[in-house]
């Protein structure tokens, strides 16, 4: 079966600076794949390359369809929900408006989607008219995930969801990611510096170093790998 997302030798640059030097990876249907690596390794750039937010070369295939320089709007409409670093919530808008934006490109009733989202995040129902910018960091992260859910994505790309959040909140978020994957069958491409959390929820992972894939494999394997343990898991 063709993978949902496939990158072949993708290079990306910010102006004259090359951030990705030929990255190849795949995400299968219903898989959770993690991208690990230190700061500046190119993790965020990889997601941005898929979304078309950065100049790139190489092959990117989404459900067998070759992406040809599509911009973020088009990639989103092809079923990719990208929750960027910093969440990308609209602080000036209300919670409800943020959720509505997730489904902005679709016609028809949103009741069904709202019900699904509220089953994952019941507390959102009580805060509909609250301005998104006044939510706590963890709540904003969850709002971002809820909005992504509203997009009914085939692929959910999440960038550093645990950044700046307390451990309990982080645990909650990873639990939700696992639920999303198991109950909705959504494929997840997860970028994280926190290797332990990622490897516990992901099926497979890639480790990036200076814009290249250094290691890859199933999570259990990587967790046992000597070099990875030392550099990224701390023991």
């Amino acid at each position, binding site marked *: 079966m063709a993978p949902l997302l496939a990158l072949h030798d993708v290079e990306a640059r910010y102006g004259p600076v090359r951030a990705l030097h030929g990255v190849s990876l795949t995400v299968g249907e219903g898989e959770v794949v993690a991208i690990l690596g230190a700061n500046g390794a190119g993790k965020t750039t990889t997601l941005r390359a898929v979304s078309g937010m950065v100049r790139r070369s190489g092959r990117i295939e989404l459900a067998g369809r070759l992406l040809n320089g599509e*911009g*973020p*709007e088009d990639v*989103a409409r092809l079923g990719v929900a990208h929750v960027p670093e910093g969440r990308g*919530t*609209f602080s000036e808008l209300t919670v409800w408006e943020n959720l509505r934006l997730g489904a*902005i490109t679709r016609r028809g009733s949103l009741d069904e989607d709202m019900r699904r989202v509220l089953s994952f995040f019941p507390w959102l129902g009580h805060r509909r008219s609250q301005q998104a910018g006044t939510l706590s960091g963890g709540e904003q992260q969850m709002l971002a995930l809820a909005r992504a859910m509203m997009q009914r994505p085939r692929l959910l790309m999440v960038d550093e969801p645990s950044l700046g959040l307390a451990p309990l909140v982080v645990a909650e978020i990873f639990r939700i990611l696992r639920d999303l994957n198991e109950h909705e069958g959504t494929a997840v491409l997860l970028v994280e510096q926190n290797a332990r959390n990622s490897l516990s929820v992901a099926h497979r992972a890639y480790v990036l170093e200076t814009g290249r894939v250094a290691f890859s494999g199933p999570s259990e394997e990587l967790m046992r790998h000597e070099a990875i343990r030392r550099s990224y898991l701390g023991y």
Partner: protein
Amino acid sequence: MRMRATAAIVPLLLAGCGVFLLVGSLESALFAQLTVSGLANGGIYASLAVALVLIYRATQVINFAQGALATFATYVAWQFIAWNMTYWLAFSLTLGCAFVGGIVVERVAIRPAGRRGSVLSIVIASIGVLILVEGSIPLIWGTDVRFFPSAFPARTIHVGGVAFQLQDLGTIGVSIAAVVLLWILFRFTKLGLAMRAAAFRPEAARLVGVRVGWMLSIGWGLASALGAVAGMMAAPSPSVLLQPSMMDGILIYAFAAAVLGGLESPAGAVVGGLAIGALLNLLGSYVGWVTPQLLLPAAFLLMLTVLLVKPSGLFGRTSVRRV
């Protein structure tokens, strides 16, 4: 468009203003008449000011061409009427043309400058549009000053024993209706939400599939249509008349109103426009040494005073400066 009065001084100031106008109107018939005709002017300033705010909010650009585009639209309306269309049909058709015109201007003249340029480059492009559009009017319609009919018959309406011009009341009504319709669009429709999202956070909006480029164009279209309303309301007045430079002075007052209200706030633009209209009219009549030439400096003095107290305008957000 939520009101953001962060200082208590703003509601106080506005309440004071409102009370002043109300009490004065109840006391003196002349005061009431001047207030109403001032508010009619203010409605025109407000419409144009909201158009300016619309574009500024989304792009940080001050559209210098707003007045010229409004004038052009009014000429188009005149042409429709000269072709024997009924007033309101011509009015509606003109709004449509202005909308399309705004989109065209954005795509052809503004977008290219924005691609690699700074905000200032786009502002200069808009000045280029101003020069071009205002210059094209005499080429198409000649230089004669024309008469533009009013939407409302020249009757007086008596309220509480005071005679008001139907035209003034009608202008206030139409201006407010236009702004309210726009507010409804932004607040309650999918398109409005997408436009707001595109204005606040274009990158994040793209990630949910919003075509930010089109939202911008539509914003320019709506602003242009709103300007057309202002133009068609202003042209009938004998002190304005249909001529190429018709909206030049009005545009300046609209700038003052938009700045006074806070450039990011349409509500502020409305309040600012109405306030400037009413207060200046009263000032011009009651204070002897205020000649017509001093009205413009007076408007700016008002604007500056507000800015000194609240540097981002009445309803402006004091933006956090990123280090």
